[in-house]
């Protein structure tokens, strides 16, 4: 099980708590987590990645183990701590600035 932490607005939209768990098959990549998340919570489709291109929305970031994975290729394997459930995969609304 991969632990995924959602930002406030997406928790409300999906009507879940701060953290959800999704079953992800190997290979455990960013793409696999997002696919599993959207399959379990279809209301989140289009909110993290664009519907058509499946590209990350510009102001959404992916963090794990104190690293920013947002710019990594989506086929990059997740850190081992995320794979074994020690650490969550964080989906974050980027800072708005100001």
């Amino acid at each position: 099980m991969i632990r995924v932490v959602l930002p406030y607005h997406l928790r409300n939209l999906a009507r879940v708590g701060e953290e959800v768990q999704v079953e992800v098959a190997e290979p455990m990549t960013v793409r696999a987590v997002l696919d599993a998340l959207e399959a379990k919570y279809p209301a989140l489709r289009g909110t993290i990645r664009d519907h058509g291109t499946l590209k990350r929305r510009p102001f959404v970031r992916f963090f794990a183990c104190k690293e920013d994975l947002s710019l990594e290729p989506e086929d990059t394997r997740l850190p081992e701590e995320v794979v074994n459930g020690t650490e969550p995969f964080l989906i974050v609304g980027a800072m708005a600035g100001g």
Partner: protein
Amino acid sequence: MSSIRVLVGTKKGAFILTGDGKRKNWKVSGPHFAGWEIYHLKGSPVDPNRIYASQSSGWFGQIIQRSDDGGKTWNTPGSSAEELKGPEGFPKGESNKFVYEGKVGTHMWYDGTQHPWEFKRIWHLEPSLTDPDTVYAGAEDAAIFKTTDGGKTWKELSGLRAAKSALWQPGAGGMAVHTILQDPKHPKRIYVAISAAGAFRTDDGGKTWKPINRGLKSQFELPDPDAEVGHCVHRITLHPSKPDVLFMQKHWDVLRTDNAGDKWTEVSGNLPSDFGFPIDVHAHEPETIYVVPITSDSLHYPPEGKLRVYRSKSGGGEWEPLTKGLPQKDCYVNVLRDAMAVDSLQPCGIYFGTTGGQVYGSADNGDTWNAIVRDLPPVYSVEVQMLP
């Protein structure tokens, strides 16, 4: 006695104002979808409990929400009540998939090059006059979508973008279908308005569209002031009893047409400024119209810091200021294009919201005004529902 529901979309959520038939006592509920931009929400004319809302965010994109109980509860269409039961229940509807039909195409970009259409958000939702499951949605980048399953799936009526769209160009506010009007006497006739492209009409239910901009003059905005497309139309409106007569607030100029848009005539008359955003028609007097003059395209606030609604009882040309109850000094708010609506009680009620967060209402044709609420987030849209 009838009561009234005023649906208010704001920069930080939706609010529902419920008033009694006298329009004196109001109850405010909200924010619904707190923290999200609500460009528009509107009820079905055939089922007042059915309300659609456009919820969007610079972070997370577009969501469509639907209420089947007058705004008490909301779901993304496609979710069944069964799925929502119990602590583990979560909505399965996605309802936010707006995909342009066919080859996506291009429009004019700021630098003169062609730029591909990119979906950004839904500005306006227009429920069908006859079917609560059918809704039209006006999108940025400009396109019209339609659902016939209560908002679960959306399909573009792509004929609109065949109407010289390579010449459409976004203004500073983007390029969106912001107004959709259905003709109650000719069910296959629909009008839309787009900034900055102009007004368009279909007579075949949305398959084909034509520009209807003859008579519009944009001498400061376009190299050809009489161009067929490219005009910055801010809002159009009609009275259901005379749907061939439309009124328009353009970037500059207030205009009317008496032949379904085939030819427009300026009726700005004695307005202190003919720049503005909303325009609306009295519920019972098809030649009585309302605008809110704004100083200029550079100064988006009322002239002289006085918030004045102007009313014409002659379909334009002759205008009178309506000021009682509205701030007449130090007022520098704007009133956006979708932020005015009327009720159909006697006498007619008029409502508008400001970028300063006030929603003003008049229960006497606009003669006097009161603030129903004063401190909401900036108001994007106002709609009215009559309840039995």
